[in-house]
Each structure stands twice: as structure tokens, then as C-alpha cells.
């Protein structure tokens, strides 16, 4: 697993639905793992699910755009509203409103930043 994106849920979708979503995501190309995560921060914390992929699944802009689009479909398919996908750069993509073009632009920017921040280092592969 070398790339991880995070799905952030503004309200708790319920553990059952999260488990189902996790199952849905398994079929994605390059899927390497997923799990819910919570921080120890005070205040209203977003519930989050991380989704890990093999490097090549998100390595190219086209592949990453397609994968993220499919994640959005799966989330919407479970009737979850208001969720966002967070890229490792911290950029957030609204699942409800982002178009494929929007996703592509954000992914392109992320890939440029990735090359600048971590061209060869650990986790950068």
C-alpha cells in the first residue's frame, strides 16, 4: 500500500453502513485496505475512513481521477450525503458536487505537489 485517501463524513453514517461501504470499495482496482479512523481531538471531529491503494492505482492522473470518481459513486450509492474525499495533500473533494473535471484538476495539482514534496523518499515510490 503506498497511497491513501480519506473519506470524511460530517455526521456518523452508522457502523453498518460504513462496513458495507468498506465492502463496496474492495472491488476497486488496486485496493489495498480500508478502515475507519478517529482522532483524539476535542470538539466536533469528522468521522473518517481511510482507503489504501497500490502505487499504480493513483500514480497517473487519469487512473487517480477514475478511482476517485468510483469512490464517490460508492459513497453516493450508500445514500451518504455531505462526504468529502481528502487527498494526502489535504485537498478536499466534495463527493456531492465535484464534477469529473473538478476531480481531474485537483488530482493534477496533487500530482504536481507530490513530485515537488517527495520525489523519491519513503512512501513516495
Amino acid at each position, binding site marked *: *500500500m503506498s*497511497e*491513501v*485517501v*480519506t473519506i470524511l463524513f*460530517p*455526521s456518523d453514517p452508522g457502523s453498518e453502513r460504513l462496513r458495507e461501504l468498506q465492502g463496496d470499495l474492495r472491488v476497486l482496482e488496486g485496493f489495498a485496505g480500508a478502515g475507519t*479512523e*478517529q*482522532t*483524539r*481531538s*476535542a*470538539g*466536533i*471531529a*469528522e*468521522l473518517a475512513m*481511510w482507503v*489504501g491503494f497500490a502505487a499504480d492505482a493513483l500514480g497517473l492522473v487519469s487512473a487517480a481521477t477514475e478511482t476517485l470518481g468510483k469512490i464517490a459513486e460508492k459513497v453516493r450509492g450508500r445514500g451518504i450525503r455531505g462526504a468529502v474525499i*481528502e*487527498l*494526502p*495533500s*489535504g485537498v478536499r473533494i466534495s463527493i456531492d458536487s465535484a464534477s469529473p473535471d473538478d476531480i481531474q484538476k485537483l488530482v493534477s495539482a496533487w500530482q504536481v505537489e*507530490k513530485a*515537488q*514534496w*517527495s*520525489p*523519491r*523518499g*519513503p*512512501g*513516495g515510490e
Partner: protein
Amino acid sequence: MAPDDPASIDHARKRAMARFEEGEIPEALAELTRLIDAPAADRGARSRQALYYLRLDRATVLRRANRWDEAMADLDEAERLIDGLAPLFQDMCRGSVAHARALILGDPANPGADPTRCLGELARIRRSGFAVLECAADDLESRLAHRAGDWTTAAALARRAAASLDDQGWPAAAATCRRREAEALLGRGDVDGAEAALDAARRHFDRFGTPLDLAHAELVRARILSARHAHDEAWHCTLDALARFDHLIHRFSVLSEQQAFLRDKLERYAEAFAVALAAGGDTGCLRAWSVAERSKSFYLCQLLASGSVALFEGVDPARLRAFEEAGDTLDRLDAQLGRLSRDDREGEPGQQLIARLHDASREKARALESLMRADPRWARVNVPGELDVGRELARMPGGWSLMSYYWEGTGGGAESGGGREPGRLHVFWTDGSSRPCHTVTEWAPQDLELLRASRTRLTGRVPRGATLVPEALGALILPPEVCGSIPEGSRLLVSPHGLLQMLPIHAVVIDSQDFAAGRWAIQYLPTLALLPLARQSNAPDPVLLIGCEQDGFGDRPLPDVPGELRALEEVWSEPPARPVTRHLVPRDGTPDAAGAEVGRWGGFGVLHVACHGDLPADRPFDASLRLGSSSVRSSDFFGIRLDGAIVTLSACSLGRHAEGARDRAVMADEWIGLCLPLLYAGARCVVASTWEAFSEPAARFMRALHAALKRGDDPADAVRWAQDRTASEIPFPAAWANWYPVGVPAGPPGRR
């Protein structure tokens, strides 16, 4: 009781100003404030004149304490009083107020400086037609030229002002102008001229100069000697000047007041650094390294030097009650805020509550400052001694290397410092033979931009897959000569500075291959000046494990916490077992109700707290550990004594510290948050997270950390091992690099 007749008020004012001249700034301010606040009988123009002078003088003291807004408010009040004074007197007074305003508006250290308004006030001064104010205008223009680096104009105007001031019988002001002339000539490279001007200034200062005048003049002397390559003499002058500055800085017992005073003093330390470094070789390296470390964490150092004084002992019970009540109000408001729905929280009800919360926080801060001010021994009973890095190197326990950073220029690039843009980073370190080494890395604007972006990203929620420190910055932070000379497996004690604060240097990638944490066990220390202040510790055996799964503040449950505490209890109970106390505080409980009130934490050698944590960026002393329905706050630790305990905070972001607190000038190098009071209380090492800790990885990390501590590992080694274990299970640095240890290394008896 304050006098109420004009003559007595005038006498008391002059006495207060004499204290100011002696460098007793807090005392002078307290006295002038007492006189201003006392209800005086209105005896017409004479009373108003006395009040006018009080306001004008307090504005001067406040300006020299760098409390510019308060100084401006006093000048506004002084100006209002002028209308009631004798007509002949009024123009002169207006000119004096304009001059005082212009000094504030033209001060580059003042975030509210306004050159346009400053020039407007300058024009008013020139129009007044009074000869002494004409000199003051020359003086002011000389300052402006000096700050713009126009040395020729600065020197000429300062010389002219000095001559006129001398003619009119103002020798102190003339001497200050001559010192500035010396600095300007030095800037122009005219060392002989600088020396002559300084000698003329010192003829006055040596007999009548204030401590600040003497300190500043001594430093100019050091710079002149350095320019003549008389490095040892220059160093002696530098030490003398720094001792004088230190003495003035350490007079402040209230943190925010001291930090305000420091704003422009760091520039002097930067000048001292340049003088020290100019000596070259190991000598120059050690001297400059010492100056760099002396210019960090002034308040923390004086707190530790006065570590035997507990803030809450013997204080006025009414003040203490006000402080405690403010804390209770904060808890209540935090809990109310937590019970709001997301929509309400983001809407008007939430905004109203947040406004009340800020009011309560201000009230608590005022109560805390009042406690600090009222205790004459607080942070002042002992003054930290002079740091000599060479001496500390000789005393370091085996296996440790030291590394310090220092941004050239002022303010260290901290966002709150108002300093120049940093561009050169000095790196000091010891190699495998404990030899001092020094290098400089040059930072281009885009590197600094990348560094700032990285710092911004490493705040709050850090995405699991995030790259933490851009690889392009690796060689600037850990240059090859550093990496090549510190043996792998060493423990590395790092003192960061300015923009490098809170950056996980252990997560810097070296040679595109490995994290720094893979090579060395890295521990952090706010400044090496804390090394000689470390107390002999004798940490008790008992272990306290306290946590909260569901607090009363509406935070999400933390299902990993009970298991984490149980796992740690097992670790510490293995033979040879240490006495363990475990408390899981329920939603409506408190540490007190559980029999684990903070006042008793001093009886434990290991303290572990697992819960939600909160560190409001603009309210660092409200940083809290949420345990049940109450918060253990940062400021609570000022009231306890920890005898060398290791403190592990399994919560979010509590390893952060403030870079600017509300409207106060709080420097990043003071580590104001939980670290400052915990180190003051006597913690040997604090392990905390600099961003939001993922709950489940936190539990794994802590289990590994405590297992290593139990087997006797040094905290730095234990953290490194726990980071490594966590990384092997969760291969993303965001899940392990958030943890870092802070503290003074312990060594074999007799070494430290």
C-alpha cells in the same frame, strides 16, 4: 496610599521615573499606574498638569516596554488634558505628545507602525518652533534613516541633534544620539568615526546611563572591536552587554509583559551572535552557539531557575479563587458548546458561546497574570546563569550529540515576531568526537514558502498519507555534513528555532532513503540554556495511568482508551513490577472524584494521560486534557511539583505551542502550551503529539513506548523504538511522526 496633591504626585512620579531609569520597568509602571488610578482631588490646572505628566511618562515607560497600544492610549489621554493647561504651556505639550507618538509610529518592531502618520507627527513637531523639539525631530529622522539603512543621513542627523541637545542641556538625549551616530558610522564602515562617537556617548553613559543605555553602548563597543578583529575583547564586551540585557529581561514576572519587552531586544542578540561568530574556528562556533541558545526561551529559563517557587503557594486566596472560578466557567462553556449540534455550533448559538468562552478565557488570563504579578518571587527568585555551550558539551552524558538551529536576523522567522524575513539558517552540532561544528544553509524564498506550507499542513488533522516535510528541504534542515558526522544510533538533542519549531525533524528524509528517526533517537529541548538549570531528579516509582473514554464535553467516544490503559497496566505490572494506579474517568466524573486530583500527580514517576486534548492556538494556557466533566489545564501544572517524572500525553496536539496568543506578543521559542508548565513543574521528559493523533495508532504507539520505558530505555530511545514499531504496522509517517519527546537528558550520577 497614593498622594492627592499635585506637588506630591509630581514627586512620586519623578521617583517612579527614577526607577525606570534604573531599569526597573515593571516597578515603575506599577507605581505610575497606582498614581494615575488613584482618585485625586481636582485642584484645577495644577492637578491636570500633574496628570498630564503622569500620562506622558507612563507612555514613555510603556513604549520602552514595547506596549505600544497602551502607550498610544496614554498619549491620547495626555492630549485631552492639554486643553485644561496654561495657554503658554499648551504648544510645548502638544509637541511633546506628537514626538512621543512619532516614536511609536516609527518603531519597526511595532506591528502598528505607520510611517505616514509618523511623518505627519514629525511635521507637527517641526511646526511647533521649540528648539528642543527641533532636536527631537532631527533625532527621529535620524532613527528613520538608520532603520532604512541610510547610514550617512542617520549619522549626520544624529550628530546635529546631539550637538543641539547638548547646547540646550539635555546630555542624556545627546548621548543616545551619539550612540546612534556610532552605529550608523559602523554601518558605513567608518570604524574610527564610530569609536569617537561612542566614546563621546560613553562619557555620559558611564556616569549616568540607564542599564539599557549601558547594555546597548557596550554592544556597539563590541561591534567596533570585532570590526578591528579584537575578537576576545569584543567577546568580553558582548558578554557584559548580554548580561545587562538578560538582567533587564528577567525582571519581568508576567510572561506577556516580558515577551513584549523582548520584541526589539532579539535584534541585539542577533548583533551579539555576529560578533561572536566573527572570532572564527571552534572558539567562534562555541561563542555564537551560546548566544543563539541564550536568545531562546527567556521565560522558560527563568521559571526553571526559580523552580522552587510554586505559583499557587501562599497567594491571596481571593486571587486564587478568581483564577479557579474562571477555569470552572471555561469548563462549563466548553461543555455547553460540546452539546450543541453541528448546525447550532456553526450558527448564532455557537458564536455566542464562543464569544463568552473567549471572555472567560481573558478573565482567566487576567487572573493568572495577577497571580504572577502579585508574587514577588514568581519567576524572579533566581536569575538563570550565563550559558556556556562548551561547558555543557563537556557535561553531556555519553551517547548524546547536540544540534541547534538559529535563523540569522530577528524573530527567528516566527509569524508573531515581526522580524525580518529569515534566509540563513545556522546549524550547530557535535560530531562523533563531541567536537563543535557549524554550517549555514541558505534558504531561497521558495524554500521558505515550502517550509511554511509544511508547517501549515502539520496542524490539526494531518491526512494519513501526507508527506510531512518536503524532501527538497531535507538538505537545508539536515545538511550532508551534519548527517555524515553524527554516528548512527546516537541520541540527538535538538534545539529548534523560529520557523523550525514544531517541525518533526525526526521525519526529515535523508538522502531520499530514510527518515532521520531511522538514524538517531531524537529528543527536543526548547533551548540548551535549560541544561544547566535541570534539577537533580529522583522520580518516584509509582505509575499513574489515567484516561477517559467518553467525556462530558460532547466529544466522540474513544473506545481505544480503556484497552490502552489496561495494556499499559500489564506492561508496568510485569516483574519487576512498579506500583500502578489506573483510573478511567467516567463522563460525569472528575480526576478529583476518582482520587487522582492533579495536586497528587507529583507522587508518580510516570504519568500517562489518554483522552481528548485541546490546544486553542490563541489561548495556550487553556490547553486541556478532557477528563470526564472537567479539564486539566495547562496552567494547573504551575501548582504542582513533578520530581523528574516522564509524562506521556496520549491526546491530540498537546505537543504544540503558541506562536502568538491573542493580542499579545508571545514568542514561539517559549513553548507556551503544556510543555512550558510541565517542564517548570519538573517533568524530565514530555512525550506529546504535535498534530491530531489517530486514536488506534496512538494506543499502539503508547503500548510500545511504555514497554520500552519499562525495560529501562532512555525516553529518546523508547520513542524511537515505539515510532519504529508503529511504522512497521502502519506505514504512514502521519501515524507515528506526530509523537516527540521534549526534555533534558538524564545521565549517570555526577554527569547531569
